[in-house]
């Protein structure tokens, strides 16, 4: 992997935040996606959705203003923005499954070249496993962005020909944002849209099991 710098988790979130447009209704999953709210430009209003029945979540509550009846899906006390609403959990997932959310940003263990997502269970892990809202959200949102590190801690590929981890949903991912690249899942395969500063398409391909296609003569560099 040489001496080229990989993005930090915060920088991945910062790049993914650029994919959110003004007025969008957006669900953020656990992990890196949960950092995205801090990087949405002030000129853009995003209505964050929480599976426990909130649309229009604002920033996290400051010390002293916590209300434990107003928490996000990670149990963290949050605030509301003007225009917020409450509803029960079935309607919250009617929104996810029914294609009402503009974007959902999820974490990932593996994404396949067809856009299959594995993000809920590590093979062989102890315990019951926890699905939560991941399958509903991955199946139904208009656009699914996965934010994750490009490789496992020991350098293994996470963007693969076929997922070996238990699947969350099939053919659901539209865009992958990693510490090395922005990649779109298309009918013609994975398209490398951007690379991290200092990286080339060839170097990113070297860290990727699945084939990355390139449309332009030179792939654009991410702007952070």
């Amino acid at each position, binding site marked *: 992997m040489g001496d080229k710098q990989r993005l930090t988790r915060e920088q991945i979130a910062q790049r993914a935040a650029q994919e959110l447009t003004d007025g969008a209704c957006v669900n953020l999953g656990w992990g890196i996606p949960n950092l995205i709210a801090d990087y949405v430009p002030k000129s853009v209003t995003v209505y964050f959705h*929480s*599976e*426990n*029945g*909130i649309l229009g979540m604002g920033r996290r509550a400051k010390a002293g203003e916590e*209300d*434990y*009846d*107003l*928490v*996000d*899906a*990670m*149990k963290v006390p949050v605030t509301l923005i003007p225009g917020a609403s*409450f*509803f*029960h*959990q*079935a309607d*919250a*997932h*009617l929104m*996810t*499954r029914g294609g009402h959310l503009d974007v959902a940003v999820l974490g990932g263990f593996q994404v396949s070249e067809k856009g*299959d997502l594995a993000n809920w269970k590590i093979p062989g892990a*102890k*315990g*019951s*496993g*926890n*699905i*939560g*809202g*991941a*399958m*509903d959200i991955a*199946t*139904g949102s208009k656009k699914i962005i996965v934010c994750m590190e490009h490789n496992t801690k020991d350098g293994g590929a996470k963007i693969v020909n076929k997922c070996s981890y*238990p*699947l*969350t*949903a*099939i053919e659901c991912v539209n865009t992958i944002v990693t510490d090395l690249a922005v990649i779109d899942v298309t009918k013609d395969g994975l398209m490398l849209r951007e690379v991290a500063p200092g990286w080339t398409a060839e170097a990113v391909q070297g860290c990727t099991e699945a084939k990355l296609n390139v449309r332009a003569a030179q792939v654009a560099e991410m702007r952070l």
Partner: protein
Amino acid sequence: MKQKVFSSLDAAVADIPDGARIMFGGFGGAGFPNNLIEALSRKGVKNITAISNNCGTREGELGIMFKNGQVRHVIASFPGPHANYFQQRFASKEVTCELVPQGILCERMRAAAAGLLGFYTSVGVGTEVADGKEERVIDGKRCILEKPIHADFALIKAQKADDLGNLTYRLAARNFNPIMAMAAKTTIVEVDEIVPLGTIDPENVITPAIFVHRIVQAKGVRFTG
């Protein structure tokens, strides 16, 4: 008017038998019927099937029921990394678990409430959730058949009830409670406050009284972390 207000938590759960199927409301520390759960725990009911998003937070919420070995089977979406008593009983095979995607858990309960015998969904297709379920293609989309989840009792938490059982909820403490209220044969609600009939504006009722059978006022007990 049928008397629905119970004078004590213990009286409200007194007839729940061993082996009952029970729904428990709550999500993320909010909207849990913690006082009713404690009463059920005191009663010592055994071999229950618990239908709940999660399986407790250490001693809190449903945790006490697993600590005491009162649960035999769970239908849940996110048992939880902090549900240590559940995880212990699951590992030792004292408790079995059906994992259900969260929105499908809601919708299967809503199907039970609505008198529907099932529905098809793309959620879970190609995953282990689809194992053993009928799969077909509708309008070009692969989907699986999901069946309703019924329960004998729902234990839920609301903010206010009137004497008839019309309910309001507070902020995101609503979560699973209104759905479970509709799905169970007998719904028992603990509330912060019981208000006189007519003082909840009908426009503001979230759970209509037809779904509520027993009401008990309880001082809030909350578990965080």
